[in-house]
């Protein structure tokens, strides 16, 4: 059996590793444009200089030899011929496969904003090359603008805050990480960034990038009609789109979002071609990519593995040593203003969302740790914790599995696995 895996990030590497484990004698080839194995989730540590390339590696240095996987790096796949079952490389080489795993990931998305197109001064953040470019630009130029205040934008301003550049962030919503955070938790971070000199522009409409006509270098970004934000270079952090350029002549089915369509077993419309990770257009989350790849590897080797967990509205973050976790509907619309909360006063507070649909409980302890739980009728729908995340994994399980907590007779902030304790024959835990 000959497997080819495309891509060397979360899905590709973990998929290849799982294939080796499940089929010890197969021939496995991994092809990637990347010439290093690195965790894209740690790129901001590379920008800040806190980690070298080798410390971005999420597998051991001997990964390929240990797993007896042939790695063709620095080459791009230009075409997949599903009838002949071959992949064509940019070097002209053509390789045959019995089964193919496409884990080619995604690229930074550049939305339709006048002059906001990739250039030596306008970059996304997806690869080591992008980061090298950002590092170079931040040494050479003074005014950096990051567009997009999501998790990636937040990572980038943190990484860049170590540089000499003046940094501005432009975001269309009212605060940082609008999808994950409420105003309380966002403000805590924003104040820390502001102390590092980062300037924020919220609730902004972006009109376009004004370029220096001589050399195509940006001069400023025009926002809100007439306002100008000085920009020598621009980092675009507005989400990703799947890397499927090499499938343009292929009959492999795509979704309406131009991602590869897969079934539960991660099989594409072609029975010998599978796909996993960002290229399938599911949530761009590390664990989702890893699990999809492991499921695909099982299917490809004639095994079956069901891991239905693709609850994606979840994230953790850590800026300046302040941890935060956001789960599910962590910020239902709520105009109730409780001055004590705004003043960070310790206590517990209960109120409702504007539509009265959810009960919201907030606890602030004497150290300032913030815990918010959104629930209704004995079920938890969202949670937002900042400062102390101890033992909070239980909350993701309760939300994901829609577990009834009405039998728990203690404060909602103190629920633990003790309340659902059950041990299986193989001595694993299982929710009772």
């Amino acid at each position, binding site marked *: 059996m000959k497997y080819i895996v495309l891509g060397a990030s979360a899905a590709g590497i973990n998929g290849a590793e799982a294939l080796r484990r499940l089929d010890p004698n197969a021939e496995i080839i991994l092809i990637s444009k990347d010439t290093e194995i690195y965790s894209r989730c740690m790129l901001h540590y590379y920008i800040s200089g806190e980690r070298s390339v080798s410390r971005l*590696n999420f597998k051991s240095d001997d990964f390929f030899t240990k797993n007896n996987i042939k790695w063709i790096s620095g080459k791009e796949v230009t075409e997949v011929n599903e009838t002949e079952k071959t992949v064509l490389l940019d070097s002209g080489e053509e390789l045959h496969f019995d089964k193919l795993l496409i884990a080619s990931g995604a690229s930074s998305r550049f939305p339709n904003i006048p002059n906001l197109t990739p250039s030596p001064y306008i970059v996304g953040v997806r690869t080591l090359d992008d980061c090298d470019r950002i590092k170079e630009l931040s040494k050479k130029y003074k005014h950096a603008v990051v567009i997009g205040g999501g998790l990636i934008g937040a990572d980038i301003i943190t990484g860049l805050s170590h540089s000499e550049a003046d940094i501005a962030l432009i975001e269309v919503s009212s605060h940082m990480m609008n999808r994950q955070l409420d105003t309380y938790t966002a403000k805590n971070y924003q104040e820390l960034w502001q102390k590092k000199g980062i300037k924020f522009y919220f609730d902004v409409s972006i009109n376009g990038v004004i370029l220096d006509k001589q050399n195509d270098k940006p001069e400023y970004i025009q926002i809100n009609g007439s306002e100008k934000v000085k920009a020598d270079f621009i980092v675009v952090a507005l989400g990703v789109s799947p890397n499927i350029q090499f499938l343009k002549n292929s009959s492999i089915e795509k979704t309406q979002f131009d991602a590869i369509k897969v079934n539960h077993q991660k099989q594409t419309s072609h029975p010998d071609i599978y796909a996993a990770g960002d290229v399938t257009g599911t949530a761009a989350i590390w664990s989702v990519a890893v699990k999809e790849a492991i499921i695909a590897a099982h299917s490809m080797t004639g095994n079956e593995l069901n891991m239905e967990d693709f609850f994606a509205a979840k994230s953790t973050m850590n800026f300046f040593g302040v941890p935060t976790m956001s789960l599910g509907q962590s910020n239902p619309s709520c105009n109730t203003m409780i001055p004590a909360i705004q003043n960070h006063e310790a206590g517990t507070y209960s109120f409702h969302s504007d539509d009265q649909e959810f009960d919201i409980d907030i606890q602030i302890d004497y150290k300032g740790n913030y815990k918010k739980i959104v629930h209704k009728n004995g079920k938890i729908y969202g949670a937002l914790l900042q400062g102390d*995340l101890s033992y909070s994994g239980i909350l993701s399980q309760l939300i994901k599995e829609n577990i009834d907590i009405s039998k728990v*007779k203690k404060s909602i902030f103190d629920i633990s696995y*003790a309340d659902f304790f059950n041990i299986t024959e193989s001595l694993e835990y299982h929710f009772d």
Partner: protein
Amino acid sequence: MKRINIDRDKCIGCLTCVTSCIVSHHAEESRNRVVLSSNRKNSPIFCRHCDLPECVFTCMSGAMSKDPKTGYVTYNQKQCASCYMCIMACPYGVLKEDDRTKKEILKCDMCTDHETGFPQCVAKCPMTAITFEEVR
């Protein structure tokens, strides 16, 4: 592989396991805990070293990995990027960050580095509420 079995009926909540964990790792905090359930049962919450470990699947730095030989889920602090995804991913709420630096994840290692190579929580439990057993 081996796992630590838990018999809640025998546990008296003396926390000797918690203390032995701290001592075994020369640490400031323990990697295990005993929690009272709402029906007042002492419930030791110890890492299961799961067959399908969520903390490993979610780890983007490579710090968490499943050792194919022992079956243990190991944690490499040097590789850890303190992103806390593992804390969020553990369905049983076993993991936490350390209180002082908030950089390290407190994760059971089955005392593989202890001179006895034997889990000290089990060794010191006066009630045999926790025992070290071979599974499958």
